[in-house]
């Protein structure tokens, strides 16, 4: 059948199985928008800012594993997506961004609303395309989806000049594509698998350290099976939470800068480390020179370039996390050996003593709301089964530390880029993907302001998200660093002239609730989640001085964590190092 380029875009999305597109119209995309007008197969969600479209598509992708799709116009439409594309790129999230471009004959002319989209997005995409011929359009879209959601996933941009969306051509959507230079390996090399199994079974102080790759690869089941089979301790990165249920007895909590004492100490002392789908990021490793000095490392990753990038690896395994874990389970079972029971008992004893330090304990108060308490109550009220998105700052760390994620894809945050403004639009994507599920956006009063306009989108599509604003009237994470490392010079980290969030939510057509007493926290959360069809903006006025503990300062090692200071207010720097 002969179609216009614009119709081909819509038809290709349909044939690709896309259900939702997040977008915002404009000149160069108008033919495409016209093609959206008269069809109901692909639902278009109109956001209020293109950044919101990318985060919403990203949230949708994280919650489902499907590719998030964005449609924007040229020029400012594209530049507004950059933060969202970079956010998805850093966390390896499958996304396809379709952008309008000025007509082919104007490209390079500084035409109205022209930017070099391929050039400007190049450093933060997995790949990008400029479509030069309408005959290539369907095939290019197919390639974009294939690249975005295979191997190590990532965002792909397809830039489509306006004239091409008007031209007609015979349409067929390719069933599959082959790209001669791209063939991701999914199965681990059997020799390396056997070496890894051998190393694991001979470990005296093993640890399993996993990241977002386990979640992305839907490998939580295999990870849990391996942990159960070996009886080894397991820790997750910020991106990996939910990979192993947080209530699993062998789970040590999150590791890294604000990880638990036991997770970081176990990383420091381990002799064999199995890392799956994690990339030894600086927020995880601390000072590399002091990183796990005694460990032999097995590194499983879909991306060969992640392996050996930051640390020396004993056994590199390139492959899909799920497939490799399955292979490891088979290799371990067929080896006939068992873990070293005595060594393991001694190791667990050591770990239990670190656990005994209760690094996540905090002081409750009758007068002022502790942010950690709000997150714990959120877990209780939602039975630990909500999808929780977050922004960036202290609230993000508290959500990660205290919510307790028992399933993968429930914890949705910008780990790599650390993008304030991510939480609310991401929640839009999550809620659209899971209309019946509880979705909470744990945010701070500074972060929420960065994409606050999306409250309007939430209204238009009746999304009953619960915004949990941990309002400390500070850019808390910045304030915390200034307290610790800048002698309490709180340069521009206060939040002045804040809106009245209850009024603000109301003006967008939502319900707002202000909570300033600890005794009211649980009731307010219950009241909010009881409203199944409304967005409720919960503005919790929290303790302004609370800090995130424990902490590894920059340049320190895992064994040099700073624990929460005693109640007498001694500064952390003056306290004993753990």
């Amino acid at each position, binding site marked *: 059948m002969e179609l216009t380029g614009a119709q081909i875009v819509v038809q290709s999305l349909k044939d690709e199985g896309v259900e939702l597109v997040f977008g915002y119209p404009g000149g160069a995309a108008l033919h495409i928008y016209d093609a959206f007008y008269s069809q109901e197969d692909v639902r278009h969600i109109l956001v209020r800012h293109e950044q919101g479209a990318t985060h919403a598509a990203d949230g949708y992708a994280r919650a489902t594993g499907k590719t998030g799709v964005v449609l924007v116009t040229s020029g400012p439409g594209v530049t507004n997506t950059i933060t969202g594309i970079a956010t998805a790129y850093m966390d390896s999230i499958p996304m396809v961004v379709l952008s309008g471009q000025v007509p082919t004959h104007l490209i390079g002319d500084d035409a109205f609303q022209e930017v070099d989209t391929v050039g400007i997005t*190049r*450093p933060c995409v*997995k790949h990008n395309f400029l479509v030069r011929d309408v005959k290539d359009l369907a095939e290019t879209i197919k390639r974009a989806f294939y690249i975005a959601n295979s191997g190590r996933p990532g965002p792909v941009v397809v830039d489509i000049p306006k004239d091409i969306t008007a031209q007609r051509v015979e349409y067929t959507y390719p069933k599959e594509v082959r790209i*001669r*230079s791209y063939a991701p390996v999914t199965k681990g090399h059997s020799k390396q698998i056997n070496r890894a199994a051998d190393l694991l079974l001979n470990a005296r102080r093993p640890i399993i350290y996993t990241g977002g790759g386990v979640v992305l690869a839907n490998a939580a089941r295999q990870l849990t099976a391996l942990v159960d089979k070996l009886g080894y301790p397991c820790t997750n990165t910020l991106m990996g939470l939910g990979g192993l249920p947080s209530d699993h007895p062998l789970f040590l909590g999150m590791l890294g800068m604000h990880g638990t004492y036991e997770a970081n100490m176990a990383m420091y002392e381990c002799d064999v480390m199995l890392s799956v789908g994690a990339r030894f990021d600086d927020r995880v490793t601390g000072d590399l020179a002091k990183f796990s000095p005694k460990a032999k490392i097995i590194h499983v990753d879909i*991306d*060969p*370039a992640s392996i*050996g*990038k930051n640390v020396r690896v004993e056994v590199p395994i390139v492959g899909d996390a799920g497939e490799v874990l399955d292979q490891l389970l088979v290799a371990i079972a067929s080896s006939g050996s068992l873990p070293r029971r005595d060594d393991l008992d001694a190791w667990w004893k050591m770990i239990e003593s670190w656990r005994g330090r209760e690094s996540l304990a905090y002081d409750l108060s009758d007068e002022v709301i502790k942010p950690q308490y709000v997150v714990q109550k959120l877990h209780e009220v939602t039975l630990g089964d909500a999808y929780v998105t977050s922004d960036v700052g202290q609230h993000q760390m508290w959500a990660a530390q205290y919510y307790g994620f028992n399933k993968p894809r429930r914890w949705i945050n910008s780990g790599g880029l650390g993008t304030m403004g991510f939480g609310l639009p991401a929640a839009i994507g999550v809620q659209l993907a899971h209309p019946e599920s509880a979705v909470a956006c744990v945010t701070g009063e500074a972060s929420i302001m960065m994409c606050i306009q999306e409250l309007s989108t939430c209204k238009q599509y009746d999304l009953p998200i619960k915004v949990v604003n941990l309002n400390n009237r500070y850019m808390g994470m910045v304030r915390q660093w200034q307290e610790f490392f800048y002698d309490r010079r709180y340069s521009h980290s206060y939040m002045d002239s804040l809106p009245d969030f209850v009024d603000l939510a109301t003006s967008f057509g939502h319900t707002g609730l202000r909570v300033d007493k600890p005794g009211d926290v649980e009731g307010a959360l219950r009241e909010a989640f009881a409203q199944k069809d409304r967005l409720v903006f919960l503005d919790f006025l929290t303790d302004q001085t609370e800090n995130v503990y424990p902490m590894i300062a920059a340049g320190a090692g895992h064994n040099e964590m700073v624990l929460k200071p005693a109640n007498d207010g001694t500064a952390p720097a003056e306290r004993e190092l753990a």
Partner: protein
Amino acid sequence: MRRILSLLVENEPGALSRIAGLFSARGYNIESLTVAPTDDDSLSRMTIVTHGSEQIIEQITKQLNKLIDVVRLLDLTEGRHIERELLLLKVVAQGTDREEVKRLVDIFRGRIIDVDGETYTIELTGPGDKLNAFLETIPSSSVLEVVRSGVSGIARGERALRL
């Protein structure tokens, strides 16, 4: 370590900037980079000369291989190979200097390809260090212009970079 990487890349407009962008974004060195068409219209051949520790070189090759436009990559320096670079050099050559310059060109097996009353234009090919050695022999005061093509290379024997 100095490395010569040979690549076959898709003959696409964005390919060169992706590769150059990778080097600048990740802070890798480029000593030289050459690109030209091949016998296959869909492919260009690129030669990159870079330096770095073993770990950096490993990252460079992995990151290059990750680019969708990179079809094949071979580190020529891992095996026996031939390296060639073209030098075009314009020098002032007057009076007795003319003979001296001509002698040096002969020693290095170069050619004088253009002459006028005051200048010689010289062509010389060889591995990078040969060109360096030649340039060192020419007094810098008489050098008017130096044009180097950047290194090209090919593996010796049966090893070949092809699809």
